[in-house]
């Protein structure tokens, strides 16, 4: 018996079967691979935190061990700068003196993120790193390079106990992304300001 592969019945059947198979395949793959992916993302987060804090030679194999060694505390802050159970602002303490805070912002094409390490006196940036989802390689994508990230080390965020806006050397041809980075840092610091003001004597 030869089927007519252009009859409506066959087309509906074909489409339905195809979609069900594909859906099952993708679901199975997602469920099976999820634990591996989560582990990678967690590891990536640790690498970024340690790198921002200036720990040398961090790679994906030793990140877990180094994080265990260096991260002395981590807690969640509420908007008044108090450590509470259900806070929304995470903070990681590295080697008892560096505070590392996560940042989220917008680049030109999509979200950008990063970590900012702040010294014990709460007024100087120790280091920063950035990541992006979809900035243009060679332009906005340059925010992930050492060259761009190193400019933040040593910048002051507090003058006389007050927050000062950060200055960013923009990347040529990537003004929007560079502005996005500046805005991200300023917004994040503003949110954490109560905590840093409290730390200051």
């Amino acid at each position, binding site marked *: 018996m030869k089927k007519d592969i252009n009859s409506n019945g066959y087309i509906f059947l074909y489409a339905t079967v195809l979609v069900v198979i594909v859906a099952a395949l993708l679901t199975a793959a997602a469920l099976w691979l999820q634990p591996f992916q989560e582990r990678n993302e967690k*590891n990536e987060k640790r690498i970024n935190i340690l790198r921002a804090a200036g720990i040398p030679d961090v790679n994906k194999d030793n990140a877990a061990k180094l994080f265990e060694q260096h991260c002395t505390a981590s807690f969640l802050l509420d908007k008044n700068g108090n450590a509470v159970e259900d806070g929304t602002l995470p903070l990681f303490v590295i080697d008892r003196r560096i505070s590392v805070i996560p940042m989220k912002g917008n680049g030109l094409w999509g979200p950008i993120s990063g970590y900012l390490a702040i010294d014990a006196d709460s007024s100087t940036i120790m280091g920063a790193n950035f990541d992006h989802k979809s900035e243009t390689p060679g332009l906005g994508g340059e925010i992930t390079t050492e060259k761009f990230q190193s400019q933040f080390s040593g910048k002051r965020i507090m003058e006389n106990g007050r927050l000062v806006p950060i200055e960013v050397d923009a990347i040529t041809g990537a003004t929007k992304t560079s502005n996005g980075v500046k805005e991200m840092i300023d917004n994040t610091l503003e949110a954490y300001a109560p905590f840093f003001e409290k730390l200051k004597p």
Partner: protein
Amino acid sequence: MSNFKKLIIEPLRKTNPVTVLVLGICSCLAVTAQLKPALVMGASVTVVTALSNLIISLLRKGIPSRIRIIVQLVVVATLVILIDQFLKAFAYDVSKQLSVYVGLIITNCIIMGRLEAFALSHGPWESFLDGLGNGLGYSLILVIVAFFRELFGSGTLLGYQVFPQSFYEAGYQNNGLMILPPMALIIVGVIIWIQRTRNPEMQENNQK
């Protein structure tokens, strides 16, 4: 053997998907500012064209022609998502490089073009080779374009400094235009020009 050679080698030259069929130009603009993403993109498109050609060729007798484009799209999209998920789980660094391009791979016209033009009317093994060949042809052009754009736009190759610092001190400057998308088109145009000059039989008016 000659068939094998023809399917793999021809797309690198006389039937190149970028310079002759002029497909896949949009991704050619997007990923060639540096060499590394161009290599990653070339490799992933090669894998996806080869595998999707193979799958569509295996299914070709059963696909109703009225919904064949949808079926092709579903197969390509599934394949790309699966590959991305696998990379995320087992090669996280590569997947981070690729994240921007996943969408570009799905919409790459070379993949759909080869499915329509070849896989629907040829056997699985031939289709697989054709996909491989076209993917390699595409990668070749990407790498050539990215080589010139990164070298003259940033003075680096694969991120390593090529021009010594003394060049810059003597007044040499990187060409900012190289980084911008139009330059990719100009370089592709120059490649097409060279290719046609060396192969006069490819010029349309000669065939009349």
